[in-house]
């Protein structure tokens, strides 16, 4: 039955309104409120506060070395995560797809770390880094294993990276495997008959055909790497000092644990939000262009 005129819009509105109300109440209003408070010097408790324009933003980006350091640290982390997580996931997906009987086994085992909560895996790795590996180094004589994995900021950056990868690669791998199974067999066969080597058939056929999965995986990695908190909290707690502090930790400290400068912390959150927005928009625009249809 075809509804006509205003009746059609009424029925559409009836379906949309409940979701819209919840969305507005729990997402839109708090977001706008947060952006509003980022222009004030509110301390989170006081009834009255002053509107100070862009003062918070100027202070965060000019006079706050801790924030700038956490910004730089997070950017470094994001770059490494995007390259390594997607590279490793793609490699493992390709390798698993070549197996016949052990395919399911490897897929299960490599996905397993993803089922453990991030904070638990950070604690498990803390145990491995601080106790098991030093003992292993002494027993086997491989002294390069005896590093101060969580004490030296240069090394602990890579410790954080290892744990994040250990936890995150499995998920992307599953997405890539699913995408690869969607590539029509006939296209691969056609490429093989035309004399393409396995490498050519991967780069010219498989990779363009899974471009939509690459878009999703890059988006997920970019998004989550900017918002990283738990791994760093579980491993180093931002220390020593503030050497491994990430943006989210800096914001949390500003708002809830040290200074109670709520307005200023909101300004930092808005900066983080705008950064994620810009980077993901660029990324989506770039990768969407490369997607092809079979």
């Amino acid at each position, binding site marked *: 039955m075809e509804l006509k005129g205003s009746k059609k819009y009424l029925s559409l509105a009836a379906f949309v309104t409940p979701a819209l109300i919840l969305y507005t109440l729990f997402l839109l209003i708090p977001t706008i409120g947060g952006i509003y408070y980022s222009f004030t010097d509110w301390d989170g408790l006081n009834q009255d506060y002053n509107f100070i324009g862009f003062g918070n933003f100027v202070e965060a980006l000019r006079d706050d070395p801790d924030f700038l350091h956490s910004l730089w640290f997070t950017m470094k982390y994001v770059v490494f995560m995007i390259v390594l997580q997607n590279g490793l996931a793609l490699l493992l997906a390709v390798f698993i797809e070549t197996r016949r009987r052990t395919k399911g086994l490897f897929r299960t085992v490599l996905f397993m770390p993803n089922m453990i909560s991030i904070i638990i895996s950070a604690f498990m790795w803390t145990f491995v880094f601080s106790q098991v590996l030093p003992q292993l180094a002494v027993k086997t004589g491989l002294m390069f294993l005896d590093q101060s994995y969580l004490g030296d900021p240069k090394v602990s950056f890579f410790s954080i990276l290892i744990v994040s990868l250990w936890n995150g690669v499995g998920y992307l791998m599953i997405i890539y495997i699913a995408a690869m199974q969607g590539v029509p067999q006939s296209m691969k066969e056609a490429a093989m008959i035309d004399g393409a*080597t*396995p490498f050519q058939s991967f780069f010219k056929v498989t990779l363009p055909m899974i471009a939509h999965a690459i878009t999703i995986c890059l988006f997920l990695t970019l998004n989550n790497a900017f918002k990283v908190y738990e791994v760093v909290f579980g491993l180093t707690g931002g220390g020593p000092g503030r050497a491994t502090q990430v943006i989210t930790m800096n914001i949390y400290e500003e708002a809830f644990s040290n200074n109670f400068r709520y307005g200023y912390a909101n300004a930092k959150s808005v900066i983080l939000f705008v950064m994620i927005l810009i980077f993901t928009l660029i990324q989506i625009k770039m990768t969407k262009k490369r997607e092809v249809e079979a």
Partner: protein
Amino acid sequence: MRAKRIPNLFILAVLVVSSAIALFPIYMAVINSLKTQGEMFESFLSLPTSLHFENYSQAFVKLDLLHSALNSP
């Protein structure tokens, strides 16, 4: 025309090594959860000589795990 293939053995080796890395911390957590404190610090890698399941019951009671579990669905 079979040139330029990645050797089968290499693929298998990569998969086995990455599986080992994926399982290692889980394995460590499980075997050390069954040892006594002293036995654990003697060697983290050795298998437990006797299975101390009372660690689990103690964790359940001391950390009030049931309460936390109800809190975190």
